[in-house]
């Protein structure tokens, strides 16, 4: 069984979202997603200061088998990226909710977070 922490929000496309400040969220991919992808061998991080709309692809996670887009969960601006993934992309497999985070987004409208799934809804989605 994969791990779905209760204190995070989730997207249909398997990103997790952690609220950091009133206007910042940290984003990564779920345990379920990393397990489906298999060994991650490369991460294309988003550019700093990039602005993105909700559901816009802004990063790429590549496993041995395939490349997968990572989407901005809500509208915002990239203010931090996890450079550690460049040297050690396997962090995503080993610590999907910890050292394997991908970027931090400064969000425009905190209300948009209400449209994301809670842990229970995401658990239901992945069955």
């Amino acid at each position, binding site marked *: 069984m994969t791990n779905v922490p209760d204190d995070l929000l989730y997207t249909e496309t398997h990103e997790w979202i952690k609220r950091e400040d009133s206007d910042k969220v940290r984003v990564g991919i779920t345990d379920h997603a990393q*397990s*489906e992808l*298999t*060994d991650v*061998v*490369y991460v*294309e991080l988003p550019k700093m200061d990039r602005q993105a709309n909700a559901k816009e692809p802004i990063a*790429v996670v*590549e496993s*041995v*088998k395939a*490349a997968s887009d990572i989407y901005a969960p809500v509208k915002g601006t990239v203010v931090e990226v996890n450079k550690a993934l460049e040297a050690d992309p396997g962090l995503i*497999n080993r610590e999907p909710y910890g050292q394997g985070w991908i970027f931090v987004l400064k969000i425009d409208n905190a209300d948009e977070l209400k449209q994301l799934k809670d842990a229970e809804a995401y658990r239901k989605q992945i069955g």
Partner: protein
Amino acid sequence: MTHGEYSKTPLYSEHVRLGAKMVPFAGWLMPVQYTSIIEEHQAVRNDVGIFDISHMGQLIVEGAGAREWLNVMLTNNINKLGVGMGQYTFLLNERGGVIDDLIVYRIGEQKFLLVVNAARRDKDFAWLQNHHKEGRSLDRPSSGLETAAPCELMNRSKDFGGVAIQGPRIADLFHALFGKDITLPPRNCIANFPFDGTTVSVARTGYTGEDGIEVFFCATDGVKFWNAVLEKGKPLGIKPCGLGARDTLRLEMCYPLNGSDLSPERNPIEAGLGFFVDLNKSTFIGRDVLLKTTEIGPREKLVSFRMKEKGPPPRPHYAVFQNSERVGEVTSGTISPSLNWGIGLAYVSSAHAKIGADIDIEIRGQKFPATIEKKPLYKK
């Protein structure tokens, strides 16, 4: 298709029990990995690994005319095979394109075993069956096939299962399984051995670049054999390995994958596999085209390449450039687990397909430099 519509190998329940991630492949539900593609890859490079290859097809050709007929159907020279020997060879269409790459074993004076790719199994059989009938008809006297003495063609794929056991510790494992005094068959050879009340065929072949064997057994003996290998292999560090590791291992060795690097539109000369084609044979299907390709040189060649910088993995269908001119396309690519570096195979126009040449691989609109290198890309 839902999962219910896929075929399952005799080892399916074992894969599920071991927690494998099962994926559709060539109409089969196969394990892509058990724990990690990279770990499984390393197990084969450093110790030993076992793969389920029961999805592959087994065709039998038997009879007084079997040898002569197969020598017209296949590119390599079957007359080089004594009983118990095997060779890598191609089944081609009239245009010289690859229907399948396979290993043919001579398992009796007049009996041959063809081990073919899962995805092509039924196509191969249908193709051979059509030509088998043709060979006997008299309305095509020019085909050169009608002289063949009779032989029988049988698809025995459903009766057999198989595993590949690969890695440097294979000899220890073989002796643990079959007995201390039993000799491993020499490279590319096949022999039968008694095993726990049944008989299995062991071939010294593989698709990983490591020493290893492929074992074929009655489908009903599959689970028993699989579990015996895992148990005897435990002290040797054996790991069950999935299709993911099978692909990265073969790609480091630049072994072609049918459907990616080989296709009915590509011939073995373009693929750089002319070694397995005997143009001195007076006739075989596709010979005229291959003679011509050899004479004038192939338009494109399959080359192996290595990325110059650490970066995203190359993947099939990415465009290949040289000095901003598009010169080819990637057919296989990955991050090599042994080298921790991007590698791949690509068809590149012959004028640009020189070892040492600089090329660029276009990945998501951005060009990444690479170098055409000698095969294999991985050496111990």
